[in-house]
């Protein structure tokens, strides 16, 4: 087990290296620092002087990969690749193009993201599973049919409409909660209720339908028939046998996204102006702040790799048939 985890950690390294090189190619080679400077300073009427000043200020005035003018090991270290990309491995995110410390920003902003994403996940999971179980309990009846139709309808509506509709009816017409905003500590709850509710609601359609198929696959298996033959009632078989076995794929599906919760939900945070990492990313995209985007790409891929590792481990914990080697 320990060996396996160590090996997976070593495997993560080339993966992150790949991500790093890919983002480097995207941000520096295809899209040269000159282009970036022009974009930041305004497209037209930019003098060469202004461009080189901007590059100097933000540290983009070095060669990309190989500094022929420098001495010794500085040939490698005094390049954009070394200064901007290698530092990410040590979680040194550097300074954004607007001059703020990215690492500090991320640390500050990940808590609101988590405060929004974690309740959404938990409540959502609870509701999705109970909805799916209800459908399975009343299977091949009109109730199940209505449930499936409802799911398809719910998943055919864009999440944007859920957000706009929720903000309009609950916050603006009924005035139950504030439309948007955020506060520190417990005062944040009243700002978080609506986004969590909408987040849960917009996910119900597809997840409940997916969980239903998982349950239905289990229901037809032999051990369930045995359980029924043994004299257990339908609800007992569902909760004791079907639910437990179907939880394996559900749990592992959830574990993958657990680390990514820190990244926050882009749309939700920017609509409700919650100062999390999601809205941070959107702001960076809109203001074309490449340093932040690069940092977020790296952070996202690290969390993804952690998620993969956690999935593998959780498989062995919940399913004794799986052995890691």
């Amino acid at each position, binding site marked *: 087990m320990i060996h396996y985890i160590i090996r997976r950690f070593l495997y993560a390294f080339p993966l992150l290296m*790949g*991500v790093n090189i890919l983002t480097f190619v995207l941000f520096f080679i*295809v899209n040269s620092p000159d282009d970036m400077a022009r974009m930041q300073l305004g497209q037209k009427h930019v003098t060469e002087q202004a461009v080189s000043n901007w590059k100097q200020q933000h540290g983009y005035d070095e060669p990309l990969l190989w500094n022929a003018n420098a001495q010794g090991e500085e040939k490698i270290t005094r390049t954009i690749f070394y200064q901007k990309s290698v530092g990410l491995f040590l979680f040194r995110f550097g300074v954004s193009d607007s001059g703020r410390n990215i690492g500090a920003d991320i640390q500050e902003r990940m808590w609101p993201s988590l405060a929004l994403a974690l309740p959404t996940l938990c409540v959502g999971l609870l509701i999705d599973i109970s909805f799916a179980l209800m459908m399975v309990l009343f299977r091949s009846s009109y109730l199940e049919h209505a449930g499936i139709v409802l799911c398809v309808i719910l998943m055919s509506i864009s999440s944007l409409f859920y957000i*706009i509709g929720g903000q309009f009816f609950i916050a603006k017409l009924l005035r139950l909660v504030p439309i948007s905003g955020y506060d520190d500590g417990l005062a944040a709850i009243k700002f978080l209720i609506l986004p969590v509710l909408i987040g849960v609601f917009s996910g119900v359609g597809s997840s409940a339908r997916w969980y239903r198929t998982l349950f*239905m696959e289990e229901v037809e298996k032999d051990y369930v028939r045995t359980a029924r033959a043994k004299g257990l009632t339908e609800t007992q078989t569902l909760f004791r046998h079907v639910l437990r076995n179907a939880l394996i794929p559900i749990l592992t599906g959830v574990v993958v996204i657990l680390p990514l919760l820190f990244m926050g939900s882009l749309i939700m945070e920017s609509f409700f102006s919650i100062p999390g990492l999601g809205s941070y*990313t959107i702001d960076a*995209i809109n203001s074309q702040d490449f340093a932040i985007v690069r940092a977020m790409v790296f952070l*996202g891929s690290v969390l993804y790799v952690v998620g993969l590792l956690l999935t593998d481990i959780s498989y062995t914990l919940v399913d004794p048939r799986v052995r890691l080697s």
Partner: protein
Amino acid sequence: MVVLWTDALIFILCFGVLGIAFFLRGKEHIKRPLQKIVHSKVGMASLVALLFFVLIGLLDSVHFKPANNKSNEIISLLDYWATPLREHGEKTYSAPFAATLFSKEMMTLADGTTQWGYPRLDFGGRHLDDPETQHLPDVLKKTVYGLAQGVCLFGIIMLCCLGIRRIWQGEKRQAFFLSATAKSVWAVVFIIVPLSYALIYLSAYYHVFGTDKVGEDVFYQAVKSIRTGLVLGTLTTLIMLPMAIIFGILAGFFRGWVDDVIQYIYTTLNAIPSVLLIAASILMVQVYMANHEQDFTSVIVRADMRLLFLCLILGVTNWTGLCRLLRAETLKLREMEYVQAAQALGVKQSMILLRHILPNVMHIVLISVVLDFSSLVLAEAVLSYINIGVDPTTYSWGNMINGARLEMAREPIVWWSLSAAFVFMFALVLAANLFADTVQDAFDPRRSGG
């Protein structure tokens, strides 16, 4: 005639689908799932609705430069037929079916005095002499009139079909023509034909869905957006399919280092948050376009290039899921007896891949193509909201929502842009979801029993 990049790809796709259909006609193993789709009420009904959308999309994909036009404008066949809609712009917002503007203005009367009130629209309800009294009866009258004409048109279509069937087909087909599936198809046609006829008829007199901030007809915008949605939903999969199929099958079949490399590639791509990858690439395209302005002479060419590029990037971020599925399936298939037998008989590996593996994973490809379609249409709206979707000048539901969102704070609220985008998007995505369900039921061997 001007052929844009996406137009060309769409027509290639159409001919490709027709060609494959021609090639597979009468093949026994494909007949059974097709029969299942044909006998599914929901499936056929949603297919008809989808075809209706596709028809509009295709009409909107035939671009040309009008002959009597001085400007460098490129329009499509749909634009040509909707010329009145396109050119009947108002000054600013007006509500659906309104005869006056949405907000009060200072207006000059005929006798030279000025007055504070709602000015009449330039085009919507222009035929009315006195909007105060005539407006509502006229709207009702025109709606009933349009619907009645639509129903008549439907009746004519139905009679024609009946006549053709009677001449051409035998007894058995007759029975099918009156089956439950046929009834559901006719029901959908009965909704679509009169409704669209009435909408077209009414839009000659009123702005059926109102006008937006710059006075453009919202109905026209929503109809134009259909093409954008369809292009994104179909071309993206077209672009990703070759990559996913080749990599997936190779990884599963050869295993070893090929498998390792391919797995490494798709895990790396998966690890990058897809929104950020799309954002980075779109920013890149913007820079490229800004530096090569001379290559993009017309707005529509520029917007089209960006649309195509968005498809490309969505394809790059989306192919990994299908690739993984295909790899797993190929891993299973290569241990099957018939593949082993082929290997034992000395069939070349490329032949095994082509003749034995590829046809047997095709059902997974088909299912994932139809399943992806609706999620791509939905994704477009979200991406346009973050400004990394289609070009702001392209008509798309995402852009409509984005424009209307800022007006939600207005009092009274401007709701029609959002509603129009909602209705059209919901209809397309719902039809696509229902059809995808039917296809999955028909082609997925695991679900055929249940």
